[in-house]
């Protein structure tokens, strides 16, 4: 009885749409209720003759691998900065967390300005340092656009990882850290041999979260570059959106097939990551 409203909404707007997407993926669906069964044709096209899809997969893969590692490592670094009793730690923490609360639209627009060729702060600083030759349009250049978006994404999420690591650090048993100190262990050794192994569950959690978020990145790319220039920032999500609503094919079947394939890949990787990383966890303790 208490569960009923939740179940109704859940079945109607989560379960049913998911099933319908699977159904869509083996059909061609055009406006005016034209639905035609095509079997695995969508998947065949996807794997064999769609260079843009593979370009998008490549971009998303780079974005995810580099981004996830940088995100988690950077968050840990920031958390350690605040953990070593620096003054005003509370103030820094609150400021560093602000980007997490902002929408991708706000963050994206601000960073489009920051990267602006003429008056963006990045190029102004470069020119001021006498490196005017390396100033360029960061988002307009296919070789730098993806990295520029990645930096923005890191900027937005580092604070989140930092807070989680900080909470985990404060929960560590102080005796162990004290013992390491007594053994006159250097801070690098302390970090590698004591802190990181003890933080493993948090680490795995954050890796998985960050991974999922980056595999599905849409908003930020859409706001900052729209996938351009020359597909250089096209991600799987933006491509799905474009194929469904921007291209004049007006077919919902093909993008559904992409979504299905991509979601399965995400789920498989998440399962592998949790299993692989937590198994090592068990062996070590």
């Amino acid at each position, binding site marked *: *009885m*208490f*569960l009923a409203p*939740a*179940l109704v*909404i*859940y079945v109607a*707007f*989560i*379960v049913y749409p*998911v099933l*319908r*997407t699977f159904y*869509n993926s083996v059909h061609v*669906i055009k406006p005016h209720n034209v639905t035609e069964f095509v079997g695995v044709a969508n998947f065949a096209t996807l794997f064999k003759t769609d260079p843009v899809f593979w370009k998008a997969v490549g971009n998303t893969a780079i974005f995810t691998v580099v981004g996830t590692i940088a995100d988690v490592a950077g968050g840990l670094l*920031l958390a350690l*900065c605040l953990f070593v009793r*620096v003054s005003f730690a509370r103030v*820094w*923490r*609150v*400021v*560093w*967390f*602000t980007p*997490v*609360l*902002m*929408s*991708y*639209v*706000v963050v994206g*627009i*601000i960073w489009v300005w920051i990267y602006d060729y003429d*008056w963006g*702060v990045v190029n102004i600083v470069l020119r001021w340092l006498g490196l005017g030759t390396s100033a360029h349009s960061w988002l307009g250049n296919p070789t730098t656009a993806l990295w520029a978006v990645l930096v923005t994404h890191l*900027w937005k999420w580092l604070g*989140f990882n930092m*807070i989680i690591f900080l*909470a985990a650090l404060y929960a560590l048993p102080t005796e162990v850290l004290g013992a390491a100190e007594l053994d006159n262990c250097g801070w690098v050794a302390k970090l590698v041999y004591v802190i990181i192994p003890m933080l493993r569950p*948090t680490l795995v*959690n*954050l890796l998985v*979260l960050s991974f*999922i978020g980056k*595999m*599905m990145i*849409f*908003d930020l790319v*859409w*706001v900052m570059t729209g996938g351009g220039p020359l597909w250089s920032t096209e991600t799987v999500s933006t491509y*799905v959106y474009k194929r*469904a609503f921007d291209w004049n094919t007006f077919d*919902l079947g093909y993008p559904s097939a*992409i*979504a*299905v394939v991509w*979601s399965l890949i*995400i789920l498989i990787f*998440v399962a592998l990551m949790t299993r692989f990383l937590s198994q090592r966890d068990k062996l070590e303790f």
Partner: protein
Amino acid sequence: MAQWLAYLRRTPFLLFIVLYTIATGGPFLWVACMSLRTTPEIFANPYDLPTHLHWDKFADAWTTSNYGTYFWNSTIVVVTAVALVTVIGAMAAHCLARYRFRGRRVLRFLILSGMVVPPQLLILSLFQIMLDYRLYNSLTGLMIVYVATQLAMTVYILEGFFAQIPQDLFDAARMDGYSDFEIFWRITLPIGLAAIFTAVTLNFIILWNEFLYAVVLLTDDSKRTLPLGIMHFMGGHQLDVGMIATGLMIAILPVILLYAFFSETMIRGMTAGAVR
């Protein structure tokens, strides 16, 4: 001497902290300054403090650039969706945490698995479904989608907390003749208030900033939420930097104001899904 050396050794570290603080806080101060300056002033020098405080830009944005409409659309959709998802989610969480019944584990798994459903898997068919139900391009439709997508996480956060409430309290209440609904209303909700507050904060921020579902499910200018409104304005007035900045401020001010007073609660809220 040793003190002095210690300070010197810490200098790069402190420098890093200051630089990162400027990098995270700076852009917002910059936008705040630009939101009070006119576009010609900004193009003369983008990094200047406002000399004349053009508060009228906010009035202008609110009326002539339609930000008022966007703001109210966002407010209506988000407040209703958060209220609904909290009530429905709390009821479901209470049920899963408190009652033992057949199929409980299956239902729990089913609902919580909603947290890992990628939005792309939903968005295309939700578009069709909304067209079928005539909820496409309506704030009600968007609101329902928001409730559905945030439900799993809300249940996850609340259930964990509700399960920790001692069973004795419920047994005592039942002895006093409380009905099932009274138990939920007068015991679970008041005791779980802190967790509910956390869930509300998290859902509010996520939905206030939501873009993907809104961009797919809304088309009318009069129905746009704030993130869509800003994108739309940006598309039409690429060079009117001053006015865009004012719009950005309208979108972030509610969040910043809340953050100024409840920073700890909001940090706890945003991170509630990750650790428990």
